[in-house]
């Protein structure tokens, strides 16, 4: 009986909360509310009294180059629709109604010019349509947004314009082949990965050139395979694998376990506790060249390891070369099903 009452109480609270929130905020997440929507049919025939909109063909009269460029993109294709998500489509979807701008002889103060807006305001404009996908849902709480890196720092709403083709390395991918087709143009990126990301994160180019590295410069991997540039709930905007695992386990599946005997930091701290994911001079991309140093940073008291005070000191003596390398004996350091000390 008590549980039934509790459920009823929850239902009442939830219902009441929904009503309050709805009443407080009223409208849904649209760039322009339904009553404002300018649905137009091809040749800029406007409905619902939207006299402020002039249509993309009018924009073309002065901005033909931009119009032609946009027409090749998926943004341009939206112009062929009568409306998308109940919103205005075409140039004025982003730049706002253009009648005053046109009647003012191209008055720059009467139209939205994104180059003159702050980054967050630009992003808010993009998010009126692009929010709502799980990939984008946390953009406003991501590291990029917080540090004023906005949509148009990586994307071009008018479509990609890559430069002429250049000769380039055959071993390391670089921006020498800009004119060749890539998926970057589909995403309307201003440059292809990883060059785009490295234009700010300059230190990663050195990291990906180390002897032991993930093959990002070679093109086998992209930055966005592991990171979500649009933000997320994870540290460093990393993606997750299988719903809840860290992104490394998407490819390094053998390490996912669970093992009967877990090396707990793998789950509690992550692979980055011991490995440098971008690249390292050290084999296996370890953070330290000596395995011993790496282990000692946590297991500072190897005489009596914290979890088992009964471990004898003999096998750990540092006068023997063999016992200086912990993983010679503790070979299954990622976890074991047979031995609690990771011996086999």
């Amino acid at each position, binding site marked *: 009986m008590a549980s039934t009452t509790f459920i009823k109480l929850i239902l009442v609270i939830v219902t009441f909360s929904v009503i309050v929130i709805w009443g407080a905020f009223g409208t849904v997440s649209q760039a322009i509310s339904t009553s404002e929507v300018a649905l137009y049919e091809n040749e800029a025939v406007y409905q619902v009294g939207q006299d402020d909109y002039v249509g993309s063909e009018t924009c073309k009269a002065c901005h033909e180059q931009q119009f032609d460029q946009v027409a090749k993109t998926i943004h341009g294709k939206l112009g062929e629709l009568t409306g998308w998500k109940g919103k205005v489509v075409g140039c004025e979807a982003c730049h706002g109604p253009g009648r005053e701008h046109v009647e003012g002889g191209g008055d720059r103060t009467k139209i939205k010019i994104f180059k003159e807006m702050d980054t967050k305001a630009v992003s808010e404009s993009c998010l009126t349509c692009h929010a709502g996908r799980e990939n984008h849902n946390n953009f406003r709480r991501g590291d990029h947004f917080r540090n004023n890196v906005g949509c148009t720092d990586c994307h071009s709403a008018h479509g990609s314009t890559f430069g002429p083709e250049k000769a380039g390395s055959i071993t390391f991918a670089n921006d020498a082949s800009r004119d060749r087709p890539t998926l970057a143009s589909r995403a309307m990126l201003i440059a292809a990965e990883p060059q785009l990301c490295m234009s700010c994160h300059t230190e990663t180019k050195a990291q990906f050139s180390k002897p032991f590295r993930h093959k990002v410069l070679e093109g086998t991997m992209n930055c966005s395979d592991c990171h979500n540039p649009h933000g997320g709930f994870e540290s460093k905007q990393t993606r997750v694998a299988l719903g809840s695992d860290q992104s490394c386990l998407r490819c390094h599946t053998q390490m996912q376990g669970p093992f009967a005997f877990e090396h707990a930091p793998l789950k509690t701290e992550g692979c980055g506790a011991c490995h440098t994911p971008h690249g390292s001079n050290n084999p296996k991309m370890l953070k330290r060249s000596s395995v011993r140093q790496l282990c000692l940073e946590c297991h*500072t008291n190897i005489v009596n390891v914290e979890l088992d005070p009964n471990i004898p000191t003999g096998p750990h003596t540092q006068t023997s070369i063999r016992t200086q390398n912990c993983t010679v004996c503790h070979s299954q350091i990622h976890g074991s099903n047979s031995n609690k000390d990771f011996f086999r």
Partner: protein
Amino acid sequence: MISIKRKNVPLRELCCRPAMSLSIFVALIAFAFSAMAQSPTPTPEDRFTIKGSTEIGARWVDVEGSENKFRSDFNYKRGFRVFDSGLTIEDTSKSGSKAFDALTILGSGWGADPNGYFRANMERDGYYRFDANVRRVVYFNNVNNHAVGNDLRNLHNSDRRRNFGDLDLTLLPQNPNIRFRVGYSFNFADGTGSTSTRISRGDVFPAFQDVDYTANDFRVGADGKVLGFNLSGTYGYRSFKDRTRFFVNNDPGDVTTNTVRINSMERNYPIDGETHFGVFSLNRTFAKVFDVTAKVTHAAVATDFTFDEVVNYFNSTNVNVIDTYNAVGDSKRLQTRADLGFTWRIADKFRVSNTFNFDGFNINGGNIYQFVGVPGSTTRQLNYTATRYRRYTNTLEGDYQVNNRFGFNIGWRYTHREVALGISTVNFGTSIPAIVPEEAENSTHSVIFGTKFKPTSNWTVFADVEAGKADNVFTRLANYEFANFRVRSRTHFNKFAVNFSFITKDNDNPGQSVTAPTASFVTEVRSRIFSSSVDWNPIDEVSITGGYDYHWLTSEVSVLIPLGGPATAGLSQYFVRDNYFFIDGSFRPHPRVGIFGSFRWNKDNGANVAIPPLGSSLIFSEYPIDLKMPEVRGTFRLNRYMDWSVGYQYFDYSELTPQQVQYGIAPQNYNAHLPYVSLRIYLGRAAMDR
């Protein structure tokens, strides 16, 4: 050296073999040609816009010095290769029955290259989008290990091939009200390798591996909009199995300090597992000012395994002994994550965000274990472990945009973690004691500050800092005091760009030990990274980019170590002093000639401090190396459809040897010469536009 052993593979695995992928790629190229050659109604030029190129060539590899190290670093092989290829086909017709609006295929690294990929995107706006990403990595690792002294054999090495890929189909991708997703991923690994195995309670031998690992993922989901809420749900399933075999067929040679001789070892260790997971997320923006996102994930992972090992060896008194190890058991992990974030745009220039995260899992595993050694040494045990983890994190941030050129943010992060670990080993015939877990919990706080400002319209500066205590409750008993600072400068002119970054990370961990409460165990890690790059494109025919990075890192750990007697207070140090310089240049001295040259130089100088003798209480490690990678390439246009390229690449690697001097291992230096030729073939519009 070890080599990949070819095996019969199931038919389902063939789909990801390089030859098959290459065939698909060639077939699509052929499709492009056929599309160009179709009947004139409508003319192919009218209907399809085709643009692409593919590069095929051959490379020679000549390595002087340590080929194992070269293969561990780069693994480039001599032979035929297909690389840097791409094709886009756009169907511009208004036909309602067309298969796609755009098809893009990219591929590189097949043949003699160790890292190959194949990506495809095919979509018809409003109907579907299909993405494929298939990769193959041939991973080789065989580098010297100081732990085996003068024995140059590495105990842990591998020569494996991993094929993995993701195939995703989205139906109605632009539909605002409902979208459907299905996906499949595969991950297959095979090859050889070795690990170390411990015999007779101390001696160590290399155990060879015949790797056989398979994982298959399936996922299905839907996104939609209901009552203004953007909803997304996904269910996924992964099955995986590991049939890797471990074996020693004869005595591979003693490790320096071994006292026993091994005759054979055979370990069969089949592992099967599966993962079920579900993700549900919700998002809505109220009145364009209040954005809310919630996400809940639940995953259940389970494995079961059997472990059978037989070791035949002569012990230190030359008695032939057969040890058998058997274990059977399982393990389960249940994990739930919940995230809630909101952003409230209080004013056009002022926002407040809050993000709450919860992560909790329980892992329970165990086995029934039996060891039979010399007569009378039988051990039967029940082992059981339990891990419980809970983490709560809340981040509150506010950001203010003062004007178009200056904005800043400030935040506070709170984390609470609880970890409990329990392990029980019970000999058969004895009573089972209750597990008394080791428990730890802590709460930490940190502050965040960041800013972006534009001193001029061409110059942007980003800076952020986070300082406080991190949540490493488990790895060390005390908190992790950290301060991370990062500043980036970007200056962009029309033909010229200069970027700088400077990143510092200070981490202090005043550790404690329950078994040595009066000792101090301090870990201090200091890291500094300076990075710079310059891009200069004075004219279309000239492009030059260069840069310099310096990474400085010092790690010092106070330790208590045994040195053949009572434990001694010591210090363990690690140093990085790494310089990286690069310059790439592209020139087009003639419309038919392109030249590319590059020089990349990675040099770690080491700390230049005296190396302590072995057995000292001062443990010292660094890895000074010198790696130079020059390359030059000339490209000559033969005609509209073809370019011919010839080039040369060189790798010069040397180890600056303190560790090798200390441990008596020869440096693994090498020089590698890689001359190559290639032919690039242009298709469709890519040829027409040249």
